[in-house]
């Protein structure tokens, strides 16, 4: 038998344990075990209440060791990581293996697998009560192959696998609790939420979220940001978005209930765009950037969970749309010939600002062949005229036109100001009332359009200023997009802009 090989290992709470200290006060029963081995798990459960000087050595990840600690009650569980040098020093072949170490540090006895008689004898020597071994195990049960007998690569892979298996537990629970939007969410553990809050008062009230009128506290907002997958550095933007969305003028109540596919679209301006690594280039309105995607998604989760807007419940949208998960993008100010959106709205260029619009999903307008700004404006006006329904005149609500950089450049090179672009689109979208009636569409704005004479001419917009121009997208490609609004004439939603507080 000889001297038990000395070791120094940390336990599941990070405390360091040396073998000589563990047997200093009397014989020690060391149990080598592994989470995925049923005999190990059953043995630890059986020894839970026996007392005695007993320590568990867990082969595997810290997460696996914590699970064994749960089975073993209050026992100390030491973490033995790949490539398992302590197990190798003990010549381990099997888990569980029970090793009795005398007070003098010698190995006094050893048993492999579950051997009820030998375990009882060793436990008694270590000061435990064999009468309290609770087990349905047979008197002999073989164990499993010890991990130190595998090659190093296999050991590392096994650890990675058990970490992954345990990490997924919280995700499954999110589905069970209904804390999701149809895609997996990040479990809002207290630690993650605290990190998201970054020292803010968790109890601060931001307001009630319609239609369920759940109270949005800073802590609940942080929980939604965690669920959405936000990094804590995004939280000042998430907070500005939430405060803007809760302003009564934005009318979150109607937006949540309506049969229209309305949802908040978020435009971000100013230096925070670069700070968070937001994407205003290729796929600005699409997928693939964490900040773009998760900031918009955090607001959706506030609406769905705190505000109770669930599909077919308090959210009655007929078709909805993929933009209802998230639609948040930075303006690509550097590629614009004009002042950015936030400067148009009176903010300083150096301020970071979020602007919220209530919109449908993006509808693309392609123009690859126009040679002049005039021709391009005609194409864009045709696209704008078709939104909602072709005969729905006027929209009477702010409408976001996202110009791709090449389209913006065509206008810029021609010397057109943003206001000139708006005015031209306003003019070119005009139709006669007779022409609209001739479509046979019942979807006409009744009072101010349908009641007029056939010869009267109306624009798609009440004024050029209703066309909101922002620039985004990659360097190549001539695809712009319109974000059509919800109900017009002041009935729907009024856009809200808000400064991001650092």
């Amino acid at each position, binding site marked *: 038998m000889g001297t038990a090989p000395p070791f120094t290992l940390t336990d599941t709470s990070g405390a360091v344990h040396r073998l000589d200290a563990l047997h200093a006060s009397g014989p020690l029963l060391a149990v080598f075990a592994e989470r995925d081995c049923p005999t190990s798990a059953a043995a630890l459960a059986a020894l839970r209440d026996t007392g005695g000087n007993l320590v568990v050595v867990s082969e595997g990840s810290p997460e696996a060791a914590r699970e064994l600690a749960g089975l073993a009650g209050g026992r100390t569980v030491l973490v033995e990581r790949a490539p398992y040098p302590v197990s190798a020093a003990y010549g381990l072949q099997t888990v569980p293996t029970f090793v009795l170490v005398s007070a003098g540090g010698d190995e006094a006895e050893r048993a492999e697998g579950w051997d009820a008689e030998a375990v009882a004898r060793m436990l008694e020597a270590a000061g435990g009560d064999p009468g309290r071994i609770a087990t349905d195990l047979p008197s002999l049960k073989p164990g499993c192959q010890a991990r130190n007998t595998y090659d190093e690569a296999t050991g590392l892979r096994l650890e990675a696998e058990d970490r992954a298996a345990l990490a997924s537990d919280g995700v499954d629970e999110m589905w069970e609790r209904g804390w999701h939007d149809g895609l997996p969410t990040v479990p809002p553990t207290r630690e993650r939420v605290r990190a998201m809050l970054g020292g803010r008062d968790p109890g601060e009230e931001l307001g009630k979220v319609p239609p369920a009128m759940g109270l949005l506290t800073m802590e*609940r907002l942080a929980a939604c940001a965690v669920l959405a997958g936000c990094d804590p550095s995004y939280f000042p933007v998430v907070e500005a978005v939430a405060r803007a969305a809760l302003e009564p003028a934005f*009318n979150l109540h109607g937006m949540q209930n309506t049969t229209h596919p309305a949802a908040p679209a978020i435009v971000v301006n100013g230096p925070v765009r670069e700070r968070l690594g937001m994407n205003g280039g290729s796929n600005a309105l699409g997928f693939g950037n964490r900040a773009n995607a998760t900031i918009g998604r955090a607001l959706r989760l506030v609406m769905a969970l705190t505000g109770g807007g669930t599909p077919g419940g308090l959210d009655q949208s007929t078709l909805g749309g993929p933009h209802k998960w998230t639609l948040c993008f930075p303006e690509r100010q550097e590629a614009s010939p004009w002042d950015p959106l936030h400067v148009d709205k009176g903010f300083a260029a150096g301020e970071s600002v979020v602007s919220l619009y209530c919109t449908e999903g993006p509808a693309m307008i392609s123009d690859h062949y126009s040679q002049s700004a005039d021709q391009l404006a005609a194409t864009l006006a045709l696209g704008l005229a078709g939104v909602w329904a072709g005969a729905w005149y006027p929209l009477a609500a702010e409408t976001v036109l996202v110009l791709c950089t090449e389209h913006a450049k065509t206008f810029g090179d021609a010397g057109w100001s943003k206001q000139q672009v708006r005015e031209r689109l306003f003019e070119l979208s005009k139709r006669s009332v007779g022409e609209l009636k001739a479509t046979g569409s019942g979807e006409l704005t009744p009072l101010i359009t349908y009641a007029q004479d056939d010869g009267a001419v109306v624009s798609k917009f009440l004024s050029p200023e209703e066309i909101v121009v922002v620039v985004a997208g990659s360097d190549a490609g001539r695809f712009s997009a319109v974000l059509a609004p919800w109900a017009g004439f002041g009935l*729907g939603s009024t856009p809200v802009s808000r400064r991001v507080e650092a």
Partner: protein
Amino acid sequence: MDRYVSPIDERTLEPLARAPRLASLDGAVIGLLDINKPRGEQFLNRVEELLRERGVAEVVRLRKPTFTRPAPDDVISLADRCGAVVEALAD
């Protein structure tokens, strides 16, 4: 203690109690709320006729300024004097 922070205000999960049902329409005061969608009035006019045939004492016609927002307090307080309210969603 839950290891997670809930995004939900638990009070919103408690079901609201339904208003007591009327035992009879005889002598009842019934509110008809038009949420201001097109043709809602046509529907409620017919409902009013049917209610009067069935012995309703008074019909109170109510109207929201817009269907896109919750009813304002003055409309809700008018509804308070009604035994029951019928709401027209229309379109």
